[in-house]
């Protein structure tokens, strides 16, 4: 690396070439004051507090943040004129800042206050009055106080450069300059809250976190976000764990670099929802009544023992929200103490893409790309859903990637914030991502006259090749919902790629088979000759925080710990849906449901109702009282992830620690402790402490070497959806991703789940207006939703939230893998 020699405060130092003075000085351990600098953003030079004096013949002061460090520069960072300049600059900033430090909620945690303490500037303030501007409380969740704003514009720049939204801007000039929204309206944004985190003063605050507790009396715990599989590091500030008083992330946090989303920032009020359980419930005389832990656990142990002794099937349905440790203990408990192979992670999205997708095609149920790979990838193909809806951190990484010149190829039904940045957006029909990939594969193989060496080495490549034929773009484009030429252009982009990351979003309600998409994505990399190349790969984005972790823990009927095959001779257990089918048929003696609500939140077609009714003994373990809980024999309340110590494995395969940041109500135990206690009562000891950690660490180890490629012959193409109805694109919608977010008043305030978005053309054709109540019906079921007309929705499709509590359009779904065509009409 090239270096340049500069002199700092009389000391010669060598620094890497191409840095700004501020960066160079920081690397030498010399800190400069600044209010507007953010290492993640383009240098701004707004606050002028980082000025330094040059001593190399060039007179004057220069702002270090926006001056390149050049060979021969001599810099003085602490000269009297530097201090005087900073003091005067602070004076100018204070001129239009409402100073009310004694009652300000940021007191003790304010960068401006720190600097005024250090440099002065408040003693002889300039003879101007404050420009009065009212506080803006018109937006949900975020309050703006323009009289405190010092115009560092970090909020404005983060909103644009990092988030890609640009909902706010600096308007006006001089004393009239201010940060505002378009037409001074309420914020219309993704409510990521980055602006609040970056604000050095109290111009942006979150009223729900307001507290009289001074900054120095708050506790802060850094943990991993538990809302999705991005694995964002976040810091929860609280009054000793009782109530969150701030949720933020530092710019050097990994993998999120200070970014969070609305869920991770605001969703924590869900933990205090009235459904939250504090004591176990046991069914007595037909009613659920509160019981002591000892009584409840005795009933559970007796129930499991009875089923085991009667030789009846016992099955556990876990969740991808368990910690890796808890998932590991659960599968050991079921397989060893209950001697049953029937243990799964429910129907949580992402598991199939990992186990049946990546596991089948490459031998290991893991993603082969990381979130960090997005920062360097030349081309990124985005499948199944806009990560802005499902995995907000990934969306911001894609914004950054596109801005640095990466080619973004979007293949999902509805365009969103990423579309203007994309090289191509294929608005495919809902659930047709696999067909699109097969069509692209057919085109590549035909153009190249063969599938390439990697695929030709795999067994069954001839059958695979033949199976592609019906997917020739000319024939299959209608099925996919785009033109053959668009598929051709996609292939042009793909063939030009020297590195390619493919993201596969998963989320409840996103139509189509996720495992098929993951497999075809790997095949696509193989056909392009990019399989196994560093910087290229498939990134499966699991819906919940620990999708990858529970798979590696062995919480799957097809796999053991580490995602390794089951021991020879052992038969795979039942999947979650088979478990429920067997239970409905009366074949299950005891059903143990952890962190899942089959009755309230699973596709109606799975038949959870009869399953819970016909299983002899049902135990539900959950932080909340769910619909399934209400029908269970015993309900055991547990901690949420943010109240828990342990680890989760993010979509990128990195195992991250979670720490208890908030105190659980009534000293609740975690899932693992409950499982261990039940096991103990059945005479079985589960590993703990260092032993457990060693076993988990082994399970999470990256696989040694790769097995070959295993091809799956393409399925016969389905028929395009019948005309007349509207194809439904369900799934997460930025602010909601399931039962936890739907219990957050803050997030419900941002978006009501009972809404369906229609294309203007469809709305007109059906005579539906904004705000109308409409009836959606499919397969004999119907729901009523509120209609919104959205010009980004393609004709013939409609978008609705799954509704993790079983509400909304999710009730129409019988088979989540199939795209759903619904009749829509005004309520008569």
């Amino acid at each position, binding site marked *: 690396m090239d270096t340049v020699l500069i002199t700092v405060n009389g000391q010669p130092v060598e620094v890497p070439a191409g840095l700004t003075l501020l960066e160079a000085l920081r690397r030498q351990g010399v800190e400069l004051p600044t209010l507007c600098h953010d290492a993640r953003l383009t240098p701004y030079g707004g606050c002028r507090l980082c000025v330094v004096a040059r001593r190399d013949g060039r007179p004057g002061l220069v702002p270090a943040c926006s001056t390149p460090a050049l060979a021969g520069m001599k810099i003085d960072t602490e000269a009297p004129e530097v201090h005087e300049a900073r003091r005067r600059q602070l004076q100018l900033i204070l001129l239009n800042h409402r100073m009310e430090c004694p009652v300000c909620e940021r007191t003790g945690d304010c960068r401006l206050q720190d600097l005024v303490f250090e440099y002065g500037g408040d003693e002889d303030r300039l*003879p*101007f*009055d404050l*420009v*009065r*501007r*009212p506080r803006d409380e018109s937006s949900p969740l975020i309050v703006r106080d323009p009289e405190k704003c010092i115009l560092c514009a970090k909020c404005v720049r983060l909103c*644009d450069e990092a988030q890609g*939204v*640009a*909902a*706010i*801007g*600096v*308007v*006006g*000039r*001089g*004393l*009239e300059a*201010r940060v*505002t*929204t*378009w*037409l*001074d309206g309420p914020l219309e944004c993704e409510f990521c809250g980055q602006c609040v985190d970056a604000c050095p003063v109290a111009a942006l605050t979150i009223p729900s976190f307001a507290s009289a507790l001074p900054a120095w009396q708050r506790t802060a715990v850094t943990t991993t976000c538990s809302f999705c599989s991005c694995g964002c590091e976040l810091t929860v500030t609280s009054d000793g764990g009782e109530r969150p008083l701030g949720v933020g992330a530092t710019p050097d946090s990994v993998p999120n670099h200070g970014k969070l989303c609305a869920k991770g920032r605001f969703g924590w009020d869900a933990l205090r929802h009235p459904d939250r359980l504090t004591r176990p419930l046991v069914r007595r005389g037909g009613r659920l009544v509160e019981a002591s832990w000892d009584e409840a656990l005795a009933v559970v142990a007796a129930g499991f023992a009875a089923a085991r002794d009667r030789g009846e099937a016992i099955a556990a349905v876990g969740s991808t929200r368990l910690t890796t440790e808890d998932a590991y203990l659960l599968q050991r408990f079921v397989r060893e103490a209950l001697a049953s192979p029937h243990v799964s992670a429910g129907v949580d999205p992402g598991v199939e893409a990992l186990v049946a997708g990546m596991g089948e095609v490459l031998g290991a149920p893991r993603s082969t790309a990381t979130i960090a790979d997005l920062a360097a990838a030349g081309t990124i193909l985005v499948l199944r859903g806009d990560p802005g809806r499902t995995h907000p951190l990934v969306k911001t990484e894609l914004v950054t990637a596109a801005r640095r010149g990466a080619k973004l190829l979007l293949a999902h039904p509805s365009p969103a914030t990423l579309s*203007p940045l994309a090289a191509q957006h294929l608005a495919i029909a809902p659930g047709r991502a696999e067909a699109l990939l097969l069509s692209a594969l057919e085109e590549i193989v035909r153009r190249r006259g063969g599938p390439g060496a990697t695929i030709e080495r795999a067994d069954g490549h001839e059958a695979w090749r033949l199976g592609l034929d019906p997917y020739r773009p000319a024939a299959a484009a209608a099925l996919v919902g785009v033109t053959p030429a668009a598929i051709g252009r996609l292939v042009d982009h793909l063939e030009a790629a020297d590195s390619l990351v493919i993201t596969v979003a998963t989320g409840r309600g996103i139509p189509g088979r996720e495992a098929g998409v993951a497999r075809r994505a790997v095949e696509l990399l193989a056909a392009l000759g990019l399989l196994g190349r560093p910087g290229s790969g498939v990134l499966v984005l699991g819906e919940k925080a620990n999708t990858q972790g529970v798979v590696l823990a062995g919480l799957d009927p097809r796999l053991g710990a580490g995602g390794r095959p089951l021991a020879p001779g052992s038969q795979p257990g039942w999947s979650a849906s088979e478990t429920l089918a067997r239970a409905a048929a009366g074949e299950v003696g005891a059903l143990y449901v952890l962190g899942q609500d089959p009755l309230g939140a699973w596709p109606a077609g799975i038949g959870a109702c009869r399953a819970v009714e016909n299983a002899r003994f049902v135990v539900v373990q959950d932080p909340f009282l769910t619909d399934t809980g209400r029908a269970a024999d015993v309900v055991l309340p547990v901690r949420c992830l943010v109240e828990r110590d342990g680890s989760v494995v993010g979509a990128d395969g990195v195992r991250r620690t979670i720490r208890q940041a908030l105190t659980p109500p009534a000293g609740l135990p975690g899932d693992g402790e409950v499982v261990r206690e039940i096991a103990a009562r059945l005479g079985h000891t589960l590993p703990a402490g260092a032993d457990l950690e060693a076993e988990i660490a082994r399970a999470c180890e990256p696989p040694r070497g790769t097995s070959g490629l295993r091809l799956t012959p393409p399925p016969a193409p389905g028929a395009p959806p019948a005309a007349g109805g509207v194809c439904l694109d369900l799934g997460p919608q930025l602010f909601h991703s399931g039962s936890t977010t739907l219990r957050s008043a803050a997030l419900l305030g941002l978006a009501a789940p009972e809404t369906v978005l229609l294309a203007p053309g469809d709305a007109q054709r059906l005579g539906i207006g904004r705000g109308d109540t409409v009836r959606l019906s499919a397969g004999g079921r119907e729901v009523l939703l509120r209609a919104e007309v959205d010009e980004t929705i393609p004709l013939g499709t409609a978008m609705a939230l799954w509704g993790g509590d079983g509400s909304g359009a999710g009730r129409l779904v019988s088979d989540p893998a199939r795209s759903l065509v619904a009749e829509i009409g005004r309520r008569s």
Partner: protein
Amino acid sequence: MSTGNELARDAATVETHAVDQPDDSVSPATLALIDAYLGDHPGGAERLIPVLHRVQEELGYLPHPVIKAIAERLGISPIQAYGVVSFYHFFTTVPRGRYQLKVCMGTACFVRNANSVLESIRDTIGLEVGGVTKDRLFSLEQVRCLGACGLAPAMMVNSEVHGHLTRTAVRKLLQGLRAKARQKRAAGEADGE
């Protein structure tokens, strides 16, 4: 202590509250103008200032829906475009007159009684600084220095400088412009019949 930024404060308060939710519609002719300009000048968001210039040249001002339409076409957010509009004194979001009067209040004009120019304008057409006549024929601003100190007191009417102004000269100039406009309108109506 008396305030040095009374004006700014008033302006700011007015600005915060005075923006009505405008009608979102932009005339097809204006959209065509924007699209034609952008079509002739390929590029990215760096075309913002030139296209704003072009549209203001045609409309006399930049209504909010027009700013939004331009922003959408350039792939930036409306508030970013408005930030630029609000920064430059040249751009305006309120209509100006067909004849934009800019009275110089620079030092030379000031000592040569530029105030009398303002007074004569007010007496002749009832226009105050910052205002627009009801018929949108005239709008009045004061500016710092036109760089025509030798002609003091001076004012500009659109791009034309008028110097050595007296009350009478101003009155005659404005009456002449009004008569011209009336003639034009009459001719236009005659054409229409």
